[in-house]
């Protein structure tokens, strides 16, 4: 696995940046999140070793986060891959490791083969099943906080009292829970999954069976 870049890239626009609106978060959750596993697989096949998928995906989300509007985007997948290819081109130019011909070839790369391995665009029901298994696979402390907050809708203070931990610890565990869910949902099948995001056998079994269901 290549190393994440250590040099920061600062947005040149100079515009103030802020968290995305709820609408934009909803749009990203609906149209972009489900594409992540296949995008990671695609990058492993098509990007040079110098490109770290996590860097590139964060940069791609930054582009999508700072667009004035997404309502004109009719084909989010094509749009995402266009952004990704443009970021790859920038990166290769910056590193000067790839010939101009190769840079030109990036534009020829097609998004994930439609006829190849099945896409992880799941139906609403399958999506919920995956979420369930991701939550079910959480370590007990993080799972308890997540469930008490999301099902019982307890406040942080109430959760802290119930579990005899500080409110700060409640937040830490909530963050861990969301992060582990994201790692689980976004990883691609053939990826060397990072420690902590490894799928449980039951989860992997579920995945391999559900997609043929």
């Amino acid at each position, binding site marked *: 696995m290549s190393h994440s870049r250590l040099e920061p890239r600062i947005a040149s626009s100079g515009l103030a940046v*802020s968290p995305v609106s709820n609408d934009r978060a909803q749009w990203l*959750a609906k149209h972009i999140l489900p594409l992540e596993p296949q995008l990671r697989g695609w990058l492993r096949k098509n990007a040079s070793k110098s490109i770290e998928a*996590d860097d590139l995906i*964060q940069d791609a989300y930054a582009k999508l986060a700072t667009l004035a509007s997404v309502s004109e985007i009719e084909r989010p997948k094509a749009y995402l891959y266009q952004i990704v290819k443009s970021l790859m081109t920038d990166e290769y130019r910056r590193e000067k490791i790839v010939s101009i011909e190769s840079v030109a070839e990036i534009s020829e790369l097609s998004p994930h083969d439609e006829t190849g391995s099945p896409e992880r665009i799941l139906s609403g029901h399958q999506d919920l099943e995956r*979420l369930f298994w991701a939550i*079910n696979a959480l370590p*007990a402390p993080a799972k308890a906080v997540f469930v008490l907050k999301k099902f019982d809708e307890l406040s942080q203070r109430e959760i802290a009292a119930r579990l005899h931990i500080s409110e700060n610890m409640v937040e830490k565990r909530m*963050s*861990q829970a*969301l992060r582990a869910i994201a790692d689980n949902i976004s990883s691609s099948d053939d990826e060397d999954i990072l420690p902590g995001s490894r799928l449980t056998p039951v989860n992997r079994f579920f995945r391999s069976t559900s997609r043929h269901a």
Partner: protein
Amino acid sequence: MHSREIHSEAFDWVVKLERGLNPDEQSLLDCWLALDTRCVGALARAQAYRVYAEGIKKFSDAQKLQLHANASEYSSHQ
């Protein structure tokens, strides 16, 4: 900064945003977002995963019961 570090901090911010930031935290968040474009993307991505995780509210009763039993068992041992 390593992208894994940014990834992790982004989820910390999402949790804080959900309960509301105090002025000091707001300044810290503004600085953090200005550090690197990847922070902007990582936060938006984490916000999207928070939305996605709200799907928990649509779980079947059986699924809810199972998760709830796990949580109750854990909290009763604390």
